[in-house]
């Protein structure tokens, strides 16, 4: 059985694809989920998902959202260009489902500023602002 790739335009693949499913895509917002599993090599020895991978999940959510709301058919390789005010309150743990929410705040000259949040069971785990850029 071939399972359709929910993120055909993201270049990331397991184990560095840090999103499992698309929950919602709106005009400026996207919601995604990731199940934090013990077998995930990104999980730390203490059973938490480290801040760097939470941040990466937000960035991948941003990339997936931008891919979905732009009409370019050829995937553009973007990159995480800047991070502001990012902080982790409580890192997601093994067995928890992380909800990734991203919102486009501003787009200008090939760079997009997004707000990202990671939640578990409605509890805010991490948040920050990210800038994604497409090289010209």
């Amino acid at each position, binding site marked *: 059985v071939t399972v359709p790739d929910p993120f055909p335009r993201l270049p990331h693949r397991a184990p560095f694809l840090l999103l499992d499913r698309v929950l919602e895509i709106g005009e400026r917002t996207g919601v995604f989920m990731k199940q934090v599993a013990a077998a995930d090599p990104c999980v730390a020895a203490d059973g938490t998902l480290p801040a760097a991978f939470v941040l990466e999940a937000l960035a991948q959510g941003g990339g997936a959202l931008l891919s979905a709301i732009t009409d370019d058919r050829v995937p553009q390789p973007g990159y995480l260009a800047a991070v502001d005010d990012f902080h982790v309150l409580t890192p997601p743990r093994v067995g928890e489902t992380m909800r990734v929410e991203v919102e486009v705040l501003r787009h200008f000259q090939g*760079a997009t*500023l997004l707000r990202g949040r990671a939640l578990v069971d409605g509890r805010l785990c991490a948040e920050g602002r990210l*800038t994604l850029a497409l090289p010209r």
Partner: protein
Amino acid sequence: MDRATVLAEVKDLLVKGLRLDRAPADIPDDSPIFGEGLGLDSIDALELVVLVEDRFHVSIPDEEVGKRAFASVAALADFILDEQGRR
């Protein structure tokens, strides 16, 4: 605000907001903001749009307006004064 005040605030915003390694007073009025002027790039442009809109309550809706507003430090001050004068 008069033009000199806006110019001074723009330079202060550029230095503090974009963490430039120079004093505001060392930035010439006619200095281009991008490229060889202050050496800023497209990531800085997005950050500057957000900073200018928040600080001066003006709108830079697209790249065409941005190109005009960001032609130089003085052009940005004049753009802000023009936009504020329309209100």
